[in-house]
Every structure is written in structure tokens, then in C-alpha cells.
């Protein structure tokens, strides 16, 4: 059984292992143990509504597989985050792809010229981030459960979040972890390869970006053909998650990652299917394995937030849950649950 729940310090080793082996780029989750530990602590504070993080909450979830043998540690097979405010108090950098028309009647020329403007306009929007999952769990329901649990969480606790949610998707890279977009743009100014820039952006403040980023708009036709080709395209490793978000009602925005040119998805809370279809029910202990349609079901309290997959009869007001599920969700008799079709 897969359970998604808030990350705790005991998950440190498991998360570290995940992040280190991740094939996808995780700017927002460092692989340095002390930074990871800080991040978990920050998440704990966010879930417990501590004043110190008010307005800058960073929620981190792990997915645990209860069916794995108990190895002493937690069986973390996935991790995912929600930042209440992109940038977390610092500027959040993006390129915004705009279009200028260079047109001359006299010469009968009419060129649409894409231009990249540096922008901070997404700063403060709620951001999905830090999604990483063990390779074996990628093809089944696990990735969707992990990703959508965050949306369910956002829907249940809207007071923490902005009206729009964004997700930066990893851009297309070369086989040796380079980025054609970076090589044609950022490299000229940051004077380092993509990996280094990526590394520093995970562990440093944004000062170095302000200092090194070119401040003038960039004409796309002057970038290399390879860079232009990957602009706004998701990396293959991220494509399942990308597809899933499109299905959820996210749309591609005009924003690109400043490092690898990857796309940004955006959705108004009101347009996200998981949020629209979520409703409350009661539960009862099941005598036998529940039957019906697949639903995500969660404990809708902040501190005990937990989410699992189950089957249920959507016409019944009371959902039957197995004892194991009730325990995993930390439910007490008479607690409300929130459910959403999977």
C-alpha cells in the first residue's frame, strides 16, 4: 500500500537516496544532507503552522510503500513538494517569451520576432516542486498519486496558497547532462557549465543570479538552432508528469526556465480537476476489501494529512476503508475524509 504523508526527519536517508539517484533535475531539492535536513525541518514547521514560516511555507511530502519489507528506515519511494510562494521570499526568475512584430509595408516584410524578457512576475505564486520517484514506481499509479496528492492538499488548505499554481518542468538536456539552451545563452554570462549553474542555484542565494544574468531582453533568432528547438519542451524524464498536469487542467505559460529553457505550467485553482472534484465523506471500517471506482482518499487535517488510493462506491455517503488504510490515514472514528476520483 502506498501512502503519501508529510516528510519527517526519519525520512532523511530515504530522500537523500532518491535525490541522488534521480534522473530528473531537482533544482529545488539539494543533495546536500544538511540542506535536505533544513528543508525537512522547514516542512515540519509549515505543517505545524509555525509563525516563523508564515507566508513562506514549504510543504514536503514523501510516498511510502507499506508493502516493502521493514528495513528499519522508512520505505520512501517518492518525494514531492509545494512551495506556498515561488521564490520563498526572494525573487523567482523566469524568462517570459514575448513576441514583437517587425513589419515594414515598404519592403513587405512581416517578421514575428520572439524575445525573452527576464521577469519575476511568477514570484509568490504557489509552486509544485521537487517531485522525484523511484524508477520502478514511475509507470503505475504511484506518480499520479504522489503528484495529485499535492493538489488535493492545496485544495483543502487554500488559505496557504495563491490563486494560481505553477510548475516548472525540466527542459531538454543532452545525453551528457548539458543543456543546449544554456550553452547558447546563460553560459556566456555565468561563465560555467550547466551542471555548475544548476548546482549553485540549488545551494546559493539568488544574489549571484542578479549579478550574472544578462539584463537586456534576448532575441530568440540569435540563439543557436538547438537552443531554439528545445525552448519550452519538457525533458523525456519529465514527460509523464507533464502529461498528467495537462490532464489536470494546467496550461503551458509563456515562461521558461532561465537555465535550461524548460516550460512552465500554470493553472488557476478553480480550473484544476482534482480541486473541482474533491468532496467530503464519512468512513466506516470495512469487513472485506472495498470495491468500486478508484479514488484518492485522505485525512483532511493539516497535521495528520495522509493520502492513499482505494476503491469505493461513489454513491454511498460512507466510504468503507480497511483497517490498514484507517491506520495509515491516522483516522479516528467519526473523522471526515476527503475523496477525489483517481
Amino acid at each position, binding site marked *: 500500500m502506498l501512502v503519501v504523508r508529510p516528510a519527517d526527519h526519519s525520512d532523511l536517508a530515504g530522500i537523500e537516496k532518491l535525490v541522488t539517484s534521480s534522473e530528473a533535475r531537482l533544482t529545488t531539492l539539494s543533495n546536500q544532507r544538511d540542506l535536505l535536513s533544513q528543508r525537512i525541518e522547514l516542512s515540519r514547521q509549515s505543517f505545524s503552522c509555525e509563525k516563523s514560516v508564515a507566508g513562506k511555507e514549504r510543504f514536503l511530502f514523501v510516498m511510502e510503500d507499506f508493502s516493502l519489507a521493514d528495513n528499519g528506515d522508512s520505505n520512501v519511494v517518492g518525494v514531492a513538494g509545494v512551495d506556498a510562494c515561488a521564490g520563498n521570499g526572494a525573487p523567482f526568475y523566469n524568462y517570459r517569451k514575448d513576441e514583437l512584430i*517587425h*513589419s*515594414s509595408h*515598404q*519592403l513587405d*516584410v512581416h*517578421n514575428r*520576432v520572439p*524575445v525573452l524578457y527576464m521577469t519575476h512576475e511568477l514570484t509568490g505564486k504557489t509552486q509544485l516542486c521537487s517531485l522525484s520517484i523511484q524508477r520502478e514506481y514511475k509507470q503505475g499509479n504511484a506518480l499520479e498519486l504522489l503528484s495529485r496528492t499535492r493538489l488535493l492538499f492545496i485544495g483543502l488548505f487554500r488559505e496557504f496558497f495563491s490563486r494560481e499554481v505553477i510548475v516548472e518542468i525540466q527542459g531538454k538536456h543532452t545525453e551528457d547532462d548539458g543543456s543546449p539552451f544554456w550553452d*547558447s545563452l546563460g553560459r*556566456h*554570462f*555565468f*561563465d*560555467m557549465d550547466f551542471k555548475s549553474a544548476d548546482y*549553485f542555484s540549488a545551494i*546559493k542565494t539568488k*544574489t*549571484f543570479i542578479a*549579478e*550574472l*544574468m*544578462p539584463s*537586456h*531582453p*534576448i*532575441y530568440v*533568432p*540569435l*540563439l543557436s538552432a538547438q537552443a531554439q528547438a528545445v525552448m519550452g519542451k519538457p525533458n523525456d524524464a519529465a514527460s509523464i508528469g507533464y502529461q498528467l498536469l495537462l490532464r489536470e487542467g494546467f496550461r503551458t505559460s509563456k515562461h521558461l526556465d532561465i537555465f535550461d529553457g524548460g516550460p512552465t505550467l500554470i493553472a488557476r485553482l478553480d480550473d484544476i480537476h482534482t480541486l473541482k472534484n474533491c468532496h467530503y465523506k464519512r468512513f466506516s471500517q470495512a469487513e472485506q476489501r472495498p470495491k468500486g471506482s478508484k479514488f484518492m482518499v485522505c485525512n483532511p487535517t493539516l497535521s495528520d494529512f495522509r493520502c492513499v488510493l482505494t476503491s469505493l462506491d461513489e454513491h454511498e455517503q460512507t466510504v468503507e476503508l480497511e483497517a490498514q488504510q484507517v491506520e495509515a490515514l491516522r483516522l479516528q472514528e467519526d473523522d471526515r475524509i476527503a475523496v477525489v476520483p483517481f
Partner: protein
Amino acid sequence: MIVIRPIEQKDLGDLLRMAQNAGSGLTTLPANEELLAAKIEASEASFSQRTDERHRFYMFALEDTEAGCIAGVCGLEAAVGLGDVWYNYRVSTTVNASSELGIHKQTPTLYLTNDMTGCSELCSLFLDADYRKGNNGRLLSKCRFLFLAQFAHLFSQKVFAEMRGYSDENGVSPFWESLGRKFFSLEFTRADYLTGVGQKSFIAELMPKYPIYLPFLSEEAQQTVGKTHDNTRPALAMLKSEGFNYNGLVDIFDAGPLVEAFVENIRAVRQSRLVTVEVGNAKPFDDTDRDPLLVSNTQYEDFRVTLFNKSSLVGKLLLINKEQAEQLQVNTGDQVRIVSLREPRLDAQKELGVKESSQTEFGVQEH
């Protein structure tokens, strides 16, 4: 005898023939009869003071009085960019540095600028191939300095010339290929032609307005910024020897360098002075003299320039013969402005790094 005088409508045929021979490098001298006639008309209107001072355009012709034809022209614009818009790129430096990461990176950056607006321009120099010998090239180019010296109040304090930019043996400008072509969607020669004939609004409409970071251009294009066409090097050396400097401005199409000088600092202006003419039986000018005097009269409408041997100067008197007096349109007792055609060789100048211009003859210099 070779003499410089204002161009006239009767020269149109000669001029058209020269323009047809000039090719595409010469923006300001397109091979179009109507436009050339208009240029001559503009020049005549300027010399006869029918045009407002700041909008005058002067065109000088090199006449072979024996052959009865003109064999070269050069232009002088009182002020550019007052009617239309004058564009250049300024090659500037952008520095990005992070002390935290120990990074310090300089990026050459092109800024679109109109900073030459209001300055005077040397332009349209062209000399027939047959006449590219002796002192003709220098005479034709430098005659304008005496005009500037004599009528400085009609010009800007600063004067400049745009030098033809680099292109390869096939006439391809790497700078244009890497930048202009992507925005203008037309050939370099056509863009150049349109600019030459004054149809410049397409620049405002199609030109990228934001600064261009040079590393976005091809290696080859980067290297041609501020680099002049091989054929133009002698002309550039000549202007430099007169005190012109490259100060970071380049042509927006081919990135050829713009060289500029304050009028009062131009060697031929600074060293020029007025002397009195005495008409007598002086010997005619011997063009094998490599170091002659450049001499002009002081008349505006009937401006004339020609060369004399240094030996013609005796104290504060310039001794000339009747034919010369006629060509210069002066009489005994009139003042003329003189200056050495080349900078006198001095040891001091070698120390300061000023070099005599190349001995190669030149025929085409400015854009």
C-alpha cells in the same frame, strides 16, 4: 591640370558612369540617374546658399581640365540625422561579476545609438581607377579639410567618416549574415541601397532595438566588428594620420568602423594658414612631387582646390602662374589657404606613434 570644384549638373553623365563602376560598397552613391541628379541639385543648392545651413550637402568634383571631364567626387554633409535618423552601433562592455562565486565576465555588447546626430560627415569619396595615381587620392579626400577650415562655422565641431566594413572575397559580410539578415529578411546590398537613397524608415521598423550581446553572433561576425574592408585600409590609415580616431561606433549593417575627429584637431585644419597670392611666371605643378602644398581659394560658392610645389611658397607669398590663377579663381593680392598635403615627418611624431599613411593608392574610402 587637376582641380577640385563644386559639382554641377553638366557632370551628371560622368558621375553616373562612376557610380556604375563603384559597386555596392558605396551607400551614398547609388547608380541611379534620378538620385544622382538630385544629389547634384542638393549640392548646388548648398553652395548657392539656397539650403538652410544645417541641411547642406556639398559635393566636390575632381576635374581634369585637359580631358574636360570629372574623374572623382567626394561629399561633405553639414549635419547627419536631422531630417531622418542616423543609426550606429556602439560597441560597449557589459561586466557581470559575482565575488561569491569568483566570476568576472566581460561581454562586448552592441547598443543601437543615434549619437552622431548633428555631426558633419565625410562621404561619397570615389576616384576613377585611371586616376588612382600620384597625389589625386589625397587631393580629393583632403580638399574637404580646407573647406572645413575656411567655413568651420557652417559645420559641427565633430566630423566623421564611416569606413566600409569587412566582407569576404565573395562580398559576403559575416556581420550582416549573423545579425541583419535575421531581422531584415533581405540582402545586404538591398538594405545598403535603400539606406543610400534615404529610404530609412524600414530600419526603425525592422531593426532590433534592444542591445545585442556579441557572443550571440557567429565567431566570424564577432571578429569583423570595427574591422574595415581590405580595400579601405589605405583610406583609414590616411584619416588616422590626420587625427581621426575609432571610438567604438560601427555601421549597423556591416560593422565597419566610424572614425571621428574634432574639426579643430584635424591635422590639415590645424596646420592650414592663409597666405597671399602673386600671379607671375611660376612653373606649373610637377605631380611627381610627393610632398606638395594643398591650396584652396577662400570663396564659398566658387570654392577651388589644387596642388602646388612647396617651392611656390616664398615667405608669406604664394607664386603662381596665370593658368593656375584662373583655375583657382584668384588674382594677385587675394588670400589663399594652404597646408602641406602630407603631415611633415618629425621625429616627435614617430615617438607618439603616428605613422605615415600607407603608400597604397586608394579610390574608395567612405561608405
